[in-house]
Structures are given as structure tokens and as C-alpha cells.
């Protein structure tokens, strides 16, 4: 049996920000090298927390996280920073540095982590901007960019150092149909062209299924289902079906827990 080469491996991880609130319970995920894997689930299910665990921002209460077969250890700062130089992250709203121009934003990781001369940095930045179709916007200030453009500049910044792992936090949220198509296309093309591994956290089922090789569905801190797009679409599991088909009621209830409405309105029973 051939062992799959996983760039990232999450094994039986349990995590909560404090003792009263457990976000993830005994979850295990694999991210094979060169694949695009989607992590889907409703808001608050713990998807973004998984990205923070992989990046070493937080530490799990139990279980392990391996990056390229090495454990991710937030307490070893040098090793953690060395790991972070191999990954790029696209934040939900871009998280661009508002005091710098688009060019300066993309140049930031190059200036901080390399000793390359300015001429070379300029070439690399223009190439990255070209890859996302925004070479002409290089001199614009962040405030002058639209939401979709800002997200693409942030993507150019995330790939500036040619990372092995690119993580996307809700890359499709709030985009118009054209930008949606452009972004999905970019994610897939970048992944294949650079040989990187991509993790997409999203609740946009259709866009994810179009570009991902594999997907996990997280619900209430557990893995509710996983598989390829076809497998998940055909799944009979009620939680998976409700999410994939967008049904308003099912295992995830429509109503926030409350007393019966008759009681609340004081109606005679």
C-alpha cells in the first residue's frame, strides 16, 4: 500500500479557547501534497480554528499537528517562524497593511525575509501581481481598492515567497459572480502551477466542489463527513445532506434554543 505523502496531518486534535468552550473534538484530517482540500461547515463550527492550529497560533489540548512530518510547536519560536516562512495565508478580508500601497504590501514578505536587491524585489512583486491580474494596480493605495481587488492583492502577498502551503480563510465570502469565478480559478491554477498544497476554509459548497480534490465537513466541532465532491454529493448522512443541499432545517436546527412560543407569548396551553 502506498503511503500518501501528507504535507499537513492533524491527528485526534481536541481544542478549546477555555475550559468551558470546546471548539474541536477529536478531529483528524490529512492534506496530501499538491492537493486542494476544502474544509466546509457553518459559521462557528471551528474551521478557522483549524487554520490557526496549523499555523501554530494556538496549541491543541490533545492530539498532534504535523507539518512535513514535523510537529507544530508554538513554544519553539525559531522553528515556528521557520515553518511560517513556508506557508502563506489569505485572510477573510485581506488584512492588507493600510498604510502601504498594493506594491509595498506584496513586497513586505520579500523585504522582511530576504536580502534580495530592490530591482529583483520589484520584478518578483510585478510577477506576483501579474499572476493575480493586478499588475496595473501596483501603485494604488489600499483604500482605493475594491473588496475583490483587495483580496487578490492579499493573495499575491501570500504567495510572494512561493509557499508550499497556502491557506485561504473564506476566500469566496461577499464576492460578485465574476470575482467568485476569478478567485476559484486562481486558487486552482496557482496550486497546480507552483506544486503547492492548498487548504480552503469556506461554506460555499458549489465553488469549493468545482476546484477541490477532497473536502471535510465540520459540524459542532466534529467531522460530519469527508470525501471527494462526488462522494459528498451522494452521501446519505443527514448532516452532510442538509449542508450540501442548503436545507433550512435538519440536524442543524433553524430555531436557536428557546422556550415554546406559546409559553413566551402567554397563550393558554
Amino acid at each position, binding site marked *: 500500500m502506498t503511503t500518501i505523502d501528507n504535507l499537513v496531518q492533524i491527528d485526534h486534535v481536541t481544542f478549546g479557547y477555555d475550559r468551558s468552550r470546546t471548539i474541536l473534538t477529536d478531529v483528524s484530517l490529512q492534506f496530501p501534497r499538491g492537493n486542494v482540500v476544502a474544509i466546509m461547515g457553518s459559521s462557528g463550527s471551528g474551521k478557522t480554528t483549524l487554520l490557526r492550529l496549523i*499555523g501554530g*497560533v494556538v496549541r491543541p489540548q490533545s492530539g498532534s499537528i504535523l507539518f512535513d512530518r514535523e510537529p507544530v510547536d508554538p513554544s519553539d519560536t525559531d522553528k*515556528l*517562524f*521557520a515553518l*511560517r*516562512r513556508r*506557508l*502563506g*495565508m489569505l*485572510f*477573510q*478580508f485581506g*488584512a*492588507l*497593511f*493600510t498604510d502601504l500601497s498594493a506594491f509595498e504590501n506584496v513586497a*513586505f*514578505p520579500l523585504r*522582511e*525575509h530576504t536580502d534580495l536587491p530592490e530591482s529583483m524585489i520589484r520584478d518578483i512583486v510585478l510577477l506576483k501581481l501579474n499572476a493575480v491580474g493586478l499588475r496595473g494596480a501596483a501603485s494604488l493605495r489600499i483604500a482605493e481598492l475594491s473588496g475583490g481587488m483587495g483580496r487578490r492583492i492579499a493573495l499575491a502577498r501570500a504567495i510572494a515567497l512561493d509557499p508550499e502551503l497556502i491557506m485561504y480563510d473564506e476566500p469566496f465570502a461577499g464576492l460578485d459572480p465574476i470575482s467568485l469565478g476569478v478567485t476559484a480559478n486562481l486558487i486552482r491554477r496557482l496550486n497546480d502551477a507552483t506544486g503547492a498544497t492548498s487548504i480552503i476554509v469556506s461554506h460555499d459548497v458549489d465553488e469549493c466542489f468545482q476546484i477541490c480534490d477532497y473536502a471535510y465537513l465540520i459540524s459542532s466541532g466534529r467531522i460530519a463527513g469527508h470525501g471527494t465532491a462526488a462522494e459528498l454529493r451522494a452521501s446519505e448522512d443527514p448532516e452532510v445532506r442538509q449542508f450540501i443541499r442548503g436545507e433550512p432545517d435538519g440536524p442543524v436546527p433553524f430555531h436557536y434554543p428557546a422556550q415554546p412560543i406559546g409559553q413566551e407569548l402567554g397563550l393558554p396551553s
Partner: protein
Amino acid sequence: MNPLNVLAALGARALWLLTSLGHASLFFVELVRHTPAALRRFDLSLVQIHAIGNLSLVIIVTSGASVGGVLALQAYYALDRYGAAESVGLLVALSLLRELGPVLTALLFAGRAGTSLTAEIGLMKAGEQLAAMEIMAVDPRSRVLAPRFLAGIISMPLLSAIFSAVGVAGGYVVAVKLIGIDSAAFWSQMQDGVDVFKDVGNGVVKTIVFGVASTFVALYIGYESDATPEGVAQATTRTVVISSVSVLILDFLLTSLMFSTRP
């Protein structure tokens, strides 16, 4: 009112206060630890010195001139009673150098530069810019916080010096040009009575201490603020209040140590 509830609330408040103080102390230690990095990337600190220092010049100069002029006026009325009107220059200079220069500069600094630091750091945190920096393996404490801390410590003594200088000039205009005190007496009494180490030196020490305190408070409150409009608004007011009170308390402590009457 259940007395147990009151006690519990008081206890919780006390615990919260202690936790905050501890948290703030750790933050201060981190700031100091990363200051050498800010010295190595002095270009970043320079940008901040311009933002904190240069852009505060208008308010410092106008306030300095006004305070100096008012001091001269009030001092003249008081001193003239005892026939000591010619000592106005000395009184204005000593008041400015020892007290009003450092303290008023620190209060104005808290209002102008402190609030802008708090809002900027708070909004950067809210916009995930600091988290983005961290995930790019750049320590925001070295890149963002320490340069601002260093800039505050450097700017404050310079601003205070300008305040005092402009204040003396304002006092000169009022005392000599408007009231008519002898110019020679004005300057010579000042020259005789002001000691470089005791008066100017102590004033400089005060400004450095105030600079450390105000900048640290502004950065800490900004860093810990809530990522909402109300959170940032609350944070900026808290910065002004806590900075100002800290400066005044520190001033009292430092003055008692520096200018005690015991030999």
C-alpha cells in the same frame, strides 16, 4: 441587596484589576525586550518620530507660548508686591523647566499622540493586520510596537525642550516687551538661578519617565482594545485618562525625590 453578591462583585473586580496589572507588566517587559530590534530598524522608528513628534509641534508651540506668556503675567503681579518684579524671568524659566514643560508636554502628548497610537494599534488589530504579520513570521512587537515605543521616548524630551524654550520666549515677550521689565535683569537673573543639572537635568529625566509611561499606556490600551467602534472609542478615552493620571502621580513622586528640601 445581597451582601454576598456585593462581596463577590468586589472580589471579582479586584481579581480583574490584578490580572490586568500583571498582563500590562508582561506587555511592558516585551516592549523593552524588543526595543533593541527597533534600534536596528531605525528607519521604522524615524517614521514614527515624525508621526508622533513633528506632527505634535503645532500644539506644543502654541501651548508653550501661551503658557509662558501667562506665567510671566501672573508672576509679575505676584512678584511686584514684594518689589521683586525683575525676577520674573527666573520664575518663568524655573517653573517651565522643572514642572510645566515636562508635565504639560506629557498631557498634550497623551491627548494628541497617545490617542492616535491607541486608535492605530486598535484598528490594526481589528483589521487582522497584526495577525497577518505574525503568520508571515514577522513579529509585530518588533515591527510595529517597539518602533512606536522608541519614538515616544525620543520625541517627548525634544517636545518638552521646545515647549520650555518657546515658553521662555513667550514670557520674554510679555515681561520685557509688554510690561517693560529690564531685559538685562530678565536674562541675567535667569542665567544665575537656573542650574543645568538640578533644573534642566531633572526636567529631562522627568520627560523621559513621562515618555515611557504615556507611550506604554497608549500602546497597551490600543493592543487590548475591543475590535469594535465602541471599543476603539473607549480605548482612546481610557488612554488619555490613564496617561494623564499616571503622569501627574509620577510627577509628584519624582518632584519629591528631586527637589526635597532636606540637605
